[in-house]
């Protein structure tokens, strides 16, 4: 099968106080196109750094990162990346923040943005299209950032803890929304989360990273069918996966 992301022996260090800080060590990750892959691992192990590298924001690393068949050193990949911080532009209101990717690619005029209104209200932001980021709650900011990411170009989505600030209900709704659109468009999704159940529920594959320096220590396939139903969480398979992953994380 075609690989959307192919990472081979990725090593990455930072310099911290003039000392080398190894963050990623021989990371290998093969993501088939159209798969939903979660990455879990302890805080500070290098998950965000991995995403930053895939997105082309970290230039100095060893090993190779191939996205859609092209080495990212050669050409900046088309990737829809939601960073861990929401990074809304404080001088733009919600709508203008959301449409930023369209504006940049020059498609704002040609794209029918009618569907946006629907998504905005699905996300519970209908009263806030004119509001500025500092007038939003933490969870609302995150939802705005997710919508914006959805409008970015690219067949690959990198989502770095996209639901961290959401309550259980909103989170469920947005998980379902995400699965729905993912099944419709079949983008490749790489998904960082701290919620093991969320990882299992959403993914085809879960990668587990070790504490810093981050290595891939586990990689399991989740064998539930699609579309998924909520009640799989009560199956023993689900619970087995969860136990397995928790033990891999030493929880």
């Amino acid at each position: 099968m075609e690989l959307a992301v192919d990472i081979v022996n990725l090593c990455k260090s930072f310099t911290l106080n003039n000392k080398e800080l190894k963050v990623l060590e021989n990371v290998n990750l093969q993501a088939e196109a159209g798969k939903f892959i979660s990455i879990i691992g302890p805080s500070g192990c290098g998950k965000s750094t991995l995403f930053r590298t895939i997105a082309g924001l970290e230039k100095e690393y060893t090993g190779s990162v191939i996205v859609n068949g092209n080495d990212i050193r050669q050409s900046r990949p088309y990737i829809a990346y939601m960073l861990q911080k929401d990074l809304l532009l404080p001088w733009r209101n919600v709508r203008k923040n959301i449409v930023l990717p369209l504006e940049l690619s020059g498609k704002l005029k040609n794209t029918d943005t009618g569907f946006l209104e629907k998504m905005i209200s699905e996300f519970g932001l209908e009263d806030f299209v004119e509001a500025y980021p500092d007038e939003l709650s933490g969870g609302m900011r995150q939802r705005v950032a997710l919508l914006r990411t959805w409008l970015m170009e690219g067949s690959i989505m990198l989502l770095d803890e996209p639901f961290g600030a959401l309550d259980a209900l909103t989170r469920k709704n947005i998980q379902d929304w995400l699965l729905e659109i993912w099944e419709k468009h079949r983008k490749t999704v790489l998904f960082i989360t701290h919620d093991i159940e969320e990882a299992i529920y959403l993914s085809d594959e879960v990668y587990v990273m070790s504490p810093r320096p981050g290595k891939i220590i586990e990689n399991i396939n989740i064998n539930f069918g699609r579309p998924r139903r909520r009640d799989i969480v009560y199956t023993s398979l689900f619970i087995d996966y969860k136990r397995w992953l928790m033990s891999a994380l030493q929880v």
Partner: protein
Amino acid sequence: MKKFINTGKLSLPISFAVLIIAWESLVYVLKTPDYLIPAPSAVLQALIESFPVLMRHTAVTLLEVILGFITALILSVVMSLLMVRIKVLYQILWPYMIISQTVPLYILAPLFMIWFGFGILPKVLIVVLVCFFPITVGFVQGLTSTEPELDELLQVMRATPSQILWKVRVPQAMPQFFSGLKIAAAYSVTGAVLSEWVGAQEGLGIFLTRSMKTFKTAALFADVLIIIVLSLLLFYIISHLEKKVIRRRSLL
């Protein structure tokens, strides 16, 4: 709260009135001769007497200021953007921009006259010279001292460097841009007055030297008064614009 704001707004007129009254009384009490420091009343009288003449001169100077300020604004913005985009340009041009500020104007005055004649051009150029530097320093500093996070976000969105500039850096540079503009605003009128050195027939600067050389101190002060009023006006227009442009709770 309301009350506080009111006394705040009043504090300036009050302090100003106190100053004027103190000045007037001091001149009376000390019998300071007019040619040293004229009383405010004498200045007012001179202002009224010379009003038509002064207005003619004001029109000339104001034109120089407006043309010069706008040219400087455009020039600064273009240059700043270019320098931030093209590093080599910055490295080459920056020192010359500083140099342009360090050459005393009274050395440049005759050269400007020789190069650009006696029309309005050399005067406008001097206003440009005075104004473009603070604007450029402020803007360049603003454009280059932003956090890299938003830059990165736009890189991820495959924004071109100039999109990054326009969509992220420029909005973030606004406070510093405006502080440069304000400094320039404060200097522009004086710049125009000075510029009239390069050979003029009319203008507040001409009125100024003439009053000075004929020992008409009150008229001289009247002229300075107009310079001050024009400068303050420009400054407050800029401050007002700033408040419109920057959506942010003011801390003052």
